[in-house]
């Protein structure tokens, strides 16, 4: 089986080519549950994201052992600890390269990255830009609460200008990152925005991302009820508009760019842009032509092949 087939890379037609995946495998919601109790504040937007991810995996029939959730550091990055799935809780800002390494070593598994706006757009911003253009088969869920919450309320890369926080008592001077436009400019092939207050709709977007061939960015508006008194559930609810219901064509880059400029009175959610024309990075890696490297025995280099390497040095 080629890596292409093993990788379960989507083709944008709602079909997962890997036969091991797909609904109707006898999985239930219980399969994704643990006894671990989240330490999030009651009412935190992260609960909606956790519910949506479980639901999406269940609906797609991706069993807990077939996926790995790689997270950063922050409230929301504790997510893998609160569901039954392989988890790797890494360093602040570094889940994308960790996940890329995992994906390149074992493209037979689904790799999902969960981190925050500080992780993805701040300290790990360089990795994010390069992941966008590289296009590895990762689903990237960014829990964007526009604040640093775990460290108790400092401004983040997406905090709106003028917001008072503990590190911007006079109001933040910096203009916020526009994650959608930045990802588009960096060459991302799937760019979407969701809202933690609508877990069902969010699950649908995660499923779409899981079907994408390469890197899928899903920026998720996540209310922080403790440290962000501006961007609340009500604040978002009043502003959210659906790209889908407004007739947006996600294959139209220019339209995506235009809609990505809206963030104020109207905040579009849904898929801004998507193309399945760009191969996933792992599809083109020469070293993967023989299949996932983790599945090969370690001593498969025979004596003749080794001697050939030595003879190159004569």
């Amino acid at each position, binding site marked *: 089986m080629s890596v292409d087939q093993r990788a379960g890379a989507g083709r944008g037609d709602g079909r997962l080519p890997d036969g091991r995946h797909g609904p109707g495998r006898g999985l239930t919601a219980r399969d994704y549950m*643990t006894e*671990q109790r989240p330490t999030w504040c009651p009412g935190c937007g992260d609960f909606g994201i956790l519910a949506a991810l479980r639901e999406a995996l269940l609906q797609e029939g991706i*069993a*807990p*052992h*077939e996926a*790995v959730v*790689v997270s950063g*550091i922050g409230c929301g990055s*504790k997510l*893998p*600890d609160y569901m*039954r*799935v*392989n*988890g*790797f*809780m*890494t*360093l602040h800002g*570094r889940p*994308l*390269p*960790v*996940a*890329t*390494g*995992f*994906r*390149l*070593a*074992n493209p*037979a*598994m689904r790799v999902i990255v969960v981190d925050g706006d500080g992780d993805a757009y701040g300290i790990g911003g*360089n*990795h994010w*830009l*390069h992941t966008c253009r590289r296009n590895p088969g990762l689903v990237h869920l960014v829990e964007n609460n526009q604040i640093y919450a775990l460290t108790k309320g400092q401004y983040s890369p997406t905090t709106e200008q003028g917001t008072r926080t503990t590190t911007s008592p006079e109001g933040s001077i910096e203009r916020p990152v526009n994650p959608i436009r930045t990802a588009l400019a960096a060459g991302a092939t799937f760019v979407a925005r969701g809202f933690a207050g609508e877990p069902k709709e969010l699950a649908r977007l995660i499923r779409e991302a899981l079907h994408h061939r390469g890197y899928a960015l899903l920026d998720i508006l996540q209310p922080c009820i403790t440290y962000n008194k501006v961007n609340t559930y009500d604040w978002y609810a009043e502003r959210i508009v659906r790209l889908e219901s407004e007739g947006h064509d996600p294959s139209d880059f220019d339209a995506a760019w235009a809609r990505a400029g809206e963030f104020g009175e109207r905040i579009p959610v849904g898929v801004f842009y998507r193309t399945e024309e760009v191969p996933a990075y792992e599809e083109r*890696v*020469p*070293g*993967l*032509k*023989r299949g996932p*490297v*983790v*599945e*090969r*025995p*370690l*001593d*498969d*280099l025979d004596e003749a*092949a*080794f*001697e050939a*390497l*030595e003879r190159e*040095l*004569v």
Partner: protein
Amino acid sequence: MRDQDVSLVIGGDAGQGVESSGAGFSSALARAGYHIFSIADYRSRIRGGHNFYQIRAATRPVASHLDPPALLLALTAESVELHLESLAPDAAVLYDSSFRLDAGAVERSGRLAVPVPMNEIAMRHGSKVMMNTAALAAAASLLRFPLQRMEAVIRQNFARKGERVVEGNLAVARETYEQVRRSPAAARFRYRLPGLPGQPERMLLHGNHAFCLGAVAAGCRFVAAYPMTPATTILEWMTAHAEPLGIVTKHAEDELAAICMAIGAGFAGARALCSTSGGGFSLMTEALGLAGMTETPVVVVDVQRGGPSTGLPTRTEQADLLFVLHASQGDFPRFVLAPGDHVEAFETAMRAFNLAEKYQTPVVVLSDQFLASSLRTLDFGRLRRDAVPVERGKTRRPGEPPLPGERGPGGGQEDGPAAGRDGYLRFAFTPDGISPRVLPGDPEAVYGAPSDEHDEAGHITEEIDNRKRMMEKRMRKLETALAAGEMRGPRRVGPAEAEVTLLAWGSMLGPASEALVLLEREGVRANLLHWCDLWPFAGEAAERELRRVRRGVVVEQNYSGQFRRFLRMTTGYEAEGLVRRYDGRPLEPGEIARGVLKEVGAGVR
């Protein structure tokens, strides 16, 4: 056959092809049956500035460069000024007749001045760029090295440029060779490198090559790196061989990404490598702790260069020792190995991957520019794959039968907490500190690995008792490794009893070994203790050897005597002397011998 041991230097400007000429001549000498040890001395720039290449050719195996050179092949007038004083008293200086040079000064110094119209000959048969061919042919002629050997290398090196270029270069070589052979100077030059019939074919490789061969022999399947001199050739070699060997290589956006990619691949179950130099390693330190905390195998090779900061990018130093031993916050187990030569670099690569997987922890290999880029000959069969068979310890892939102790409460431990999500405890408390590791993808073993402190099942916790036990479990792996005899004590070179003992680590093995011979000539009976395995430190073995040392002199390439301090820290042993160099140039055997004599002074005969 007479015993031969000749060093020669090719000097010129960057961009003049000094290094390719040097490598080409090394190759010709190696194929003619000589043992070779070559070093390149070049600057961190593409063009301009003086570069040189030093080749040592001998009829017996050699482990270091050796001064003084018997021949200078000067591609610029400047290189004559720079090298003249360091040449052997009866050395020859080959240079182009057109150089504005005081030949009288060369002769007055006792050396033989050999002007050759190299440029003119090159122009006659082709172009100015063929001057290097003329120069090498002139050197070959002076040394009575067979012309056919040079012709073979010329054919090989220029084949891809077409028959005309090959023929032009051959004509240049023949004419120059003949002119020099007939010159009166040739008759006065006493050094000879005739062809050596009956010698076996040998590999000619640098330390990074040897390390790469060890890595692929060990089943390395993933390499991530950011280009950084002098480590870059590892990523390049691996990438050139990635497809046939089925290895994933990734030139990452920075070193933080490189080590994180390697850790991600290691977590997935691939034997993963990250190659860098000190500056890149500095960026990797946080992730080194991630590997320690999540018990993820990863091998990092730090090919040291002159620091601090950008430092001396193309030069050598051994000044990352104390940094690497302590890098990253908190306590966690790690291995640190510093191979002494090309053969040991090969073996160390294989051992590093075994240790990383058996003990589920990061392994740092400390190489340096001197080892990484010095070229030496090795007989076939010297790189023995069977010396270090692949061992993965308590690791299994999905679908393979359960490991001993993998199931049950407490991962087989009676007093452990209830089993985790799947009755599998990834971080089970075990007597040896090593927990059975199932690679991700097994339906019976779904687990998390947090960089936060965690319990046996991999859930985040700050509970007091768990923290203590988990810290002890992780750190216990070092004791287990020592008790299992994984860590080697010092290798002794030379006699068991000696007046003076040289104490060295890493790449200083060769130069220090050869210094023993020179000391012997001075009437000083000396031996050498050399360490490859630095952490966890085999203290008992070290103390056993150190007790026999009468007068100890540490030999190392850094300012502050880091290994001397390390010995004091680990054993309480205080070396009497220190021979050090920190100008980025590798210590040479004669220099070591003189330094040792100075350190121990009149105390020895």
